């Protein structure tokens, strides 16, 4: 697929939602996606090194290969099969098995770090020290202290820093946030997130010695489980919608089904409380996928389904039965109405089919652990190239990523301790 076309589509999608100019003033980190942003870097390339060429690394490589503003000059992985796969995709790139050697390479201007979580902080800090711009995959780091160290080093370096929170570049989310901020659903009264799958989250492992390296997601030393791998994306929703950050979190988790030697929970239920009293929930179970992935902002006058890009009203205009039926067919969400009550009877689920608020909506079901297409990842990687070339730090991304990671880490800790944790003042650094 031509990624420039995708960006054009992205722009036209944004353009159909609001005047692009006003979108940029509301969402300034999107500058790289505008025509002005494209012109600024015309004919220039960001010379990049990829550290960690596993599934996410290769996903980025595939996207960057068709981005005219990117040139992949170096690849690094300490697992040869993955390095070879990536080398086949970019035969001209220099190959390294030690990331520090890649950082010594003067050709590399910026690095994209796609390694397991336990490596994020050390690699990011070393990269800044080596004078490189950094795009680190989410979550930012393994602990809040590591996140703070990363931020401190970033601030010292004066380099560009981007973290893999691609929802910031997804048109559905952008439009939804614009609607929420304009009061379209009244006051925000709740935030509900869930991510259900039915698979063991394992990768095929050629030898038992490699188990902890290949299946790093399943072990405490390299992962904080569902919270840093899945929740981190969704926990951004509440903060973005309300422009504030939770005060405390409580949670629980267990290994209920996949008792295969893993150390991280296979189900969690976590609740955050915001200063205004709003609660944000995150639930994940990976042994039942009935509900799939869902993200909802609940308002006093309506609800926004962020994943599907639909807005529901609390007092929907009356629609005849056949009209509701036709709308449901049009929206492709033939919900089981036998379970839903009439729209005017309280305490029962609303049957309002809602209205789509973006054209050409592209939804993802959250089942891929590599990343979905058209979820903002391409635009985020392009924004990084733009930032490397211009030296301009895209706004908001680091702050959002820091708090999303901190909330995920606190949620993980709370669910291990089965306790309530308070967000410390000294951790509110941005």
């Amino acid at each position: 697929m031509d990624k420039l076309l995708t960006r054009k589509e992205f722009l036209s999608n944004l353009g159909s939602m609001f005047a692009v100019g006003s979108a940029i003033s509301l969402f300034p980190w999107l500058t790289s996606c505008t025509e002005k942003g494209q012109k600024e870097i015309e004919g220039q390339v960001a010379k990049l090194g990829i550290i960690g060429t596993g599934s996410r690394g290769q996903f980025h490589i595939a996207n960057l290969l068709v981005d005219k503003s990117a040139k992949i000059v170096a690849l690094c992985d300490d697992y040869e099969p993955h390095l070879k796969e990536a080398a086949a995709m970019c035969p001209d790139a220099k190959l390294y098995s030690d990331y520090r050697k890649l950082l010594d390479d003067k050709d590399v201007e910026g690095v994209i770090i796609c390694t397991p979580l336990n490596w994020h902080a050390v690699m990011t800090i070393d990269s800044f020290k080596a004078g490189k711009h950094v795009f680190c995959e989410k979550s930012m780091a393994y602990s809040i202290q590591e996140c703070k160290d990363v931020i401190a080093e970033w601030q010292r370096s004066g380099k560009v820093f981007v973290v893999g929170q691609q929802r910031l570049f997804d048109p559905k989310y952008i439009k939804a946030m614009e609607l929420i901020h304009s009061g379209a659903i009244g006051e925000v009264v709740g935030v509900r997130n869930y991510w259900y799958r039915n698979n063991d989250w394992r990768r095929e492992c050629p030898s038992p010695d490699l188990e902890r390296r290949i299946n790093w997601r399943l072990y405490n030393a390299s992962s904080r489980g569902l919270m840093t791998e899945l929740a981190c994306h969704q926990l951004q929703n509440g903060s973005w919608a309300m422009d504030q950050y939770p005060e405390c979190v409580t949670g629980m988790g267990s290994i209920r089904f996949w008792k295969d030697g893993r150390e991280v929970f296979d189900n969690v239920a976590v609740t955050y409380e915001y200063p205004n009293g709003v609660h944000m929930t995150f639930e994940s179970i990976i042994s039942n996928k009935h509900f799939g992935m869902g993200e909802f902002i609940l308002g006093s006058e309506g609800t926004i389904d962020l994943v599907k890009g639909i807005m529901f009203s609390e007092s929907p205009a009356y629609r005849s039965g056949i009209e509701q039926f036709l709308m449901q067919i049009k929206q492709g969400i033939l919900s089981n109405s036998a379970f839903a009550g009439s729209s005017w009877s309280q305490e029962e689920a609303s049957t309002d089919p809602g209205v789509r608020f973006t054209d050409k909506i592209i939804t993802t079901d959250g089942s891929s652990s590599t990343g979905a297409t058209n979820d903002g990842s391409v635009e985020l990687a392009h924004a990084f190239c733009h930032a490397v070339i211009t030296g301009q730090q895209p706004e908001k991304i680091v702050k959002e990523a820091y708090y999303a990671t901190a909330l995920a880490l606190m949620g993980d800790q709370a669910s291990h301790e089965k306790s309530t944790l308070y967000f410390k003042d000294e951790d509110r650094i941005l």
Partner: protein
Amino acid sequence: MKDLVISGRKVKRELLIALGCFICAVLINIICIIVYHSQWHEIFTQIGFTVFVAIALYVLLLIVRLIILACRKIFCKRNK
């Protein structure tokens, strides 16, 4: 130019199919009223939507019939 002759039998058949589609659409409307707990006067007030559904059903059926006809023709040619 050749004159196109549509026999009365064919016209009658199409009218019957159209009537069938309309009856189906009315039934769909009734089912929707029951399922969505809406109001019975919608049988009359929503006639526009009913006609729309009837036309959609007719067109759908037409496509299916054309496909069957084409398959039959191909099949007959092969048998010859």
